[in-house]
């Protein structure tokens, strides 16, 4: 059974991404794994002792968001699971893709038609993920 890894979080744009990943999993009869990366780099400006506490709270938050995504997928009849990682987004995603042996990685488009982010996803991140994992990468 092939595995689709869908990088997601909360918000309307993420729900669209999740829906598209669910459709793809149905089409390909694949297992769907949602991933949330608890990246606390926004805390860089804050002092060090606060970061571990924040990382733990972000992990809980990620689990909660992905549990909702999993419920959504299971309602649609798709076998689903989730994983929460910490650290930088790209290496965390590569590690997870290798671990679950993902055949397809699904990334969501930016919510606010941000051209710079979309360009980064399509022209920089996607090829890098493909090269590092050997998986197909799709920006939906």
């Amino acid at each position, binding site marked *: 059974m092939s595995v689709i890894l869908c990088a997601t*979080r*909360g*918000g309307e744009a993420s729900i669209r991404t999740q829906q598209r990943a669910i459709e793809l999993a149905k089409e390909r009869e694949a297992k769907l794994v949602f991933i949330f990366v608890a990246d606390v780099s926004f*805390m860089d400006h804050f002092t060090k002792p606060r970061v571990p*506490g924040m990382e733990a*709270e972000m992990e809980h*938050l990620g689990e909660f968001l992905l*549990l909702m995504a999993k419920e959504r997928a299971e309602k649609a009849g798709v076998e689903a699971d989730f994983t929460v990682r910490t650290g930088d987004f790209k290496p965390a995603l590569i590690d997870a893709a290798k671990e679950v042996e993902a055949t397809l990685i699904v990334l969501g488009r930016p919510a606010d038609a941000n051209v710079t982010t979309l360009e980064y996803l399509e022209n920089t991140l996607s090829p890098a993920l493909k090269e590092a994992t050997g998986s197909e990468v799709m920006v939906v």
Partner: protein
Amino acid sequence: MRGTFWRYGLALFCLVAAIWLWLPDPAPASGQDGDGNESLPALVGFLQNPQGQPIAVAELTLLFDEEDTSVATVESREDGLWEIALPRLPEHSVEIEIEHPHYAMDPIKLNEEQVLSLKQGESLNLGDVEMGYRYALGFWVAAITFVFVLLVIAFERMPNATAALFGVAVVFAVTSFGGNLISEDLHVFDFERALTYINWEVIFLVMGMMIVVSVIEATGLFQWLAFQAYRWSRGQPTTLVIVLVIITTLASALLDNVTTMLLMVPITLEIAIALNLPPTSLLIPEIMASNIGGISTLIGTPTNILIGAYAEISFNDFLINQTIGVILALVVMTLYVLWHYRNVYNKGEKGISPTLYAKLEENAKIKNVKVLRKSLLVFVLTIVVFAIGEGLHMVPAVTALLAATVMLVWVETDVQKMLSLVDWTTLVFFMALFMLVGSIQEVGLISTIAGFMGDVVGSNLYAGVFVIVLGVGFLSFSIANIPLAASMLPVVEYLSGNISGAAGNKILYYGLSMGAAMGGNGFLIGGETNLMTAGVAERAGYPLSFGKFAKVSVPVTILTLLVGSLWLLFRFEVLGG
């Protein structure tokens, strides 16, 4: 073995520091500070700037009978007092030359009558001696450096501590190299003088409370409380907002705001998502409650700790004089938020799936009941001692250090972990900031600003309160409120001395406290709490934009600043005190 050594070592350090802070300043024994010439007279006086503030470390040189050689040299003290014990009597004339890097005046020449009195062995009090500003190069160095550091902090170009240390380093470098090698006019202050500006009471109070709070925050109490808010409200958004505001306010009054929000934001986001509410509709009132709630206690905000230590305002004083104002401001804020989000709250869902409910409950579990019980007991006792400490002549820093010691010995004995949880960066930031603010105080910039504000306000108490609360409040929209409050303290001291109704009751200091904390709600960049919350929300996929925040925060901030000002005037003008 090593852990035990560190544990008891740190506990001992806290105890020694507490005792050191508790001991009164040693007073010189009678006759010890004299030089044995009790029969010879002395000259005394007070040095002050045009705003009537004392001038310290000015060098006074005594000259007799138009000779070039000095008879005696002394330095003015912190309170501006100077005293020259005459080593011998003059023949016919006495002159005192006064030198200071940042102030100037012509030599004081005693008249014939005064010289005669001295010759007859009578000491003379010359009263207040006013020196004018010099505005030398050092003034501009300190002023430009301070403004630069404020901008760097506001635009987040460097961490706060780095920015403040950089500023202090510039001042020292200019003083040491420029002042000694190029021109004396570049002198700002030397290292020894800079150290006198560090308020150790603040440093130790913050450190002690960091240890106490880090134990409590690790127990999961706040996440549990947030979940209880969800349960109590039964998913009813209006009730939920009110309960969350109350919990956040209470937590912020007793802990620092960033800690409170760090613990509350993720679980609040989960609750909002579960109820299908836009998370910002719960997070924005929580941010504002957190910034306002801290005003009511000495330990609620760093600015209150600064103000309390500077103006000797006790835990009880803050509680008695600010709490009702805080409650009124919170009521206004909550009503506005409920009105603003009325359509959003009506659309929320009431129930969630059992799986999500179980996950929420799991994320909000108390992690260590035993530690929670012990730490809460210590914390409650700490608050009680804060409240009664004034009667025991115990400064708050001593209470905080004693509480930290008890926590280390009885509750959380992993000292390495505890040390790693102390926010040393913030302590360094405070020390560097004290010195940096000291540099602009030293060169007379703060006195100049105080003089200008004094001219604007005059002796009108109402104008003084509104200028401080609203002025500081609007500045806090975008300027970090800790450096702002630190630099405003001497200004407030000057204004308090000028306005008859403000001298004894410290109303303007309370105004500074309200302005700095409430103003932090104005813009998203106004406080660390705001930025941290926005960061979490953005990572969760719910960005909190500057505009979205300002739409609610600006009107609320203006309203709460007005409520705060009116409360202070009512408290001190109508109720008296």
